[in-house]
């Protein structure tokens, strides 16, 4: 890339900028008297630059690693027993329950059927609720509506709510992730 001089000591074009002395390249003769002093300056600059960059890396690497949160293994929940009984759920009502670390929504329809959904709106992660006046699921954050099959029927939600399987075992309600 540069124009190597006969002595191999020549600098690349454009590096003569700070050199007050006439450059030997001008007349095609390497200026042996000038080159060593300039090389020393370049060497010191290079050492300083590399040390500075090394120092910055040694400081920034731990800081960045520190700020990245450690991954905590989340217990994958596939099935929960909700903490209320079937008798606590009258027709046309809904209750939120904990499905692992996430909210779930349990709904008893007007016809008496129990249905369970993920409680997280597919739009921007708000927790949805059952509206007994509308008889469907509603998200208060941005007025998103889902029907009782979890279908997004109005407002901004882009996809349906995930549906869970509900089983009544005597006095217990068991909600499971669909296989």
């Amino acid at each position, binding site marked *: 890339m540069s124009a190597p001089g006969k002595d191999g000591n020549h600098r690349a074009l*454009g590096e003569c900028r700070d050199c007050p002395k006439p450059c030997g390249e001008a007349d095609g003769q390497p200026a042996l008297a000038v080159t060593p002093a300039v090389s020393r300056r370049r060497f010191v600059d290079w050492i300083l630059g590399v040390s500075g960059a090394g120092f910055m890396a040694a400081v920034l690497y*731990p800081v960045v690693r*520190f*700020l*990245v949160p450690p991954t905590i293994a989340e217990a994958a929940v596939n099935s929960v027993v909700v903490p209320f009984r079937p008798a606590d759920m009258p027709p046309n009502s809904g209750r939120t329950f904990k499905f692992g670390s996430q909210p779930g929504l349990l709904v008893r329809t007007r016809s008496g059927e129990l249905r369970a959904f993920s409680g997280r709106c597919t739009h921007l992660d708000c927790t949805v609720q059952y509206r007994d006046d509308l008889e469907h699921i509603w998200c208060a954050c941005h007025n998103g509506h889902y029907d009782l099959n979890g279908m997004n029927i109005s407002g901004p939600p882009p996809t349906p709510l995930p549906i869970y399987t509900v089983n009544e075992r005597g006095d217990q309600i068991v909600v499971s992730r669909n296989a």
Partner: protein
Amino acid sequence: MSSHLTSPPPPVAAPGAPERTPPPTAQPPGRLDRLAAWLDDRLGFSALAPLARKKKVPIHRHSVWYYLGGMVAFLFLLQVATGILLLFYYRPSAEEAYQSVQFLMSEVKFGWLIRSIHAWGANLMVFTLLVHLFSTLVLKAYRRPRELTWMTGVALMVVVLGLGFTGYLLPWNEVALFATRVGTEVPTVLPVIGPFIGRVLRGGVDVTGATLTRFYALHISVLPAAAALLIGVHVLLVQRHGMSVPIGIPQANLRELPFFPNFLLRDLIGWLVALAILASMAAFFPAHLGVKADAFAPAPAGIRPEWYFVFMFQTLKYLPAHILGIEGELVGVLGFGLAAVVLLFLPFLDRRAAREERSPGWTAAALLALVYVVVFTVLGYVVVDAPIQ
């Protein structure tokens, strides 16, 4: 924007024979130069250049002490930086504080390093500050017109000790709980206002989660803000008055070193060394966490505060229950209070130094105080409490 920053094509850029280009005598300004000029037009930082040129550091046999103030400032900034990092994981409540520090030390990458540098850095900062204060004292740098520089320095010492005291509690471990109980009990011996001070410090009658929240607020906002303000005034005054030349050093023909960049670069070397020492300490002796605080567990044996409080702690141990009918603790507290007041107003008490005369009496008093502090600190670590006969 781009028209400001793109460089014009080089004057002669004939492809094929670039090495024949004669070097121009006056180079057009480079990109960085023009960026600097652009910024300077808007920020006006070149106005600082005469200020930087004006500042000179006198060279004499005591010049080495001039480096300590900058060192304290560097360590303070390091504490701010590592402290901010710790805030990303710390949870200031009695229920969660200990676990959050444990999580930080064991799970978070380099958490042990950041916390250890913060803990060791605090110790090194207090030590450097005390050496800075003592050298200033012995060299009488507080004399006219630097009285306020000295007083802001003493105030900074109080703030930094407060930072050490409040920070010590935050991991909510056993030693911290008891050290804080003792430390917040001490001012309650003062008549009339004592119990009130104790209650305000603790946020209640006892050291509880309320104390932790209170100390957290002091440690991360009130005291750092006070320190920053005081450092600002302190540095401004140093800039205004220049460095003090000790009494007895002939002022004529004194050699001087430009502060910028010569002295600052030397400072920089000191800071790098300090950082290297801290990183080594952190790597080889990481900060302990100990056992979680339990308000109902008996105090463990050998409990003592941070080393810079030990001489006071040890003094209070030795004081008899009553001195001349006054409670021993009260005598101790009042004694240390009086010493702090003398220290604060020293520039006005040392009349001889104010007249640029030597004041060996104050030097002797300072050395005596140093011996006292060192002896009682050492006693605090080596003396084992004798069993009752």
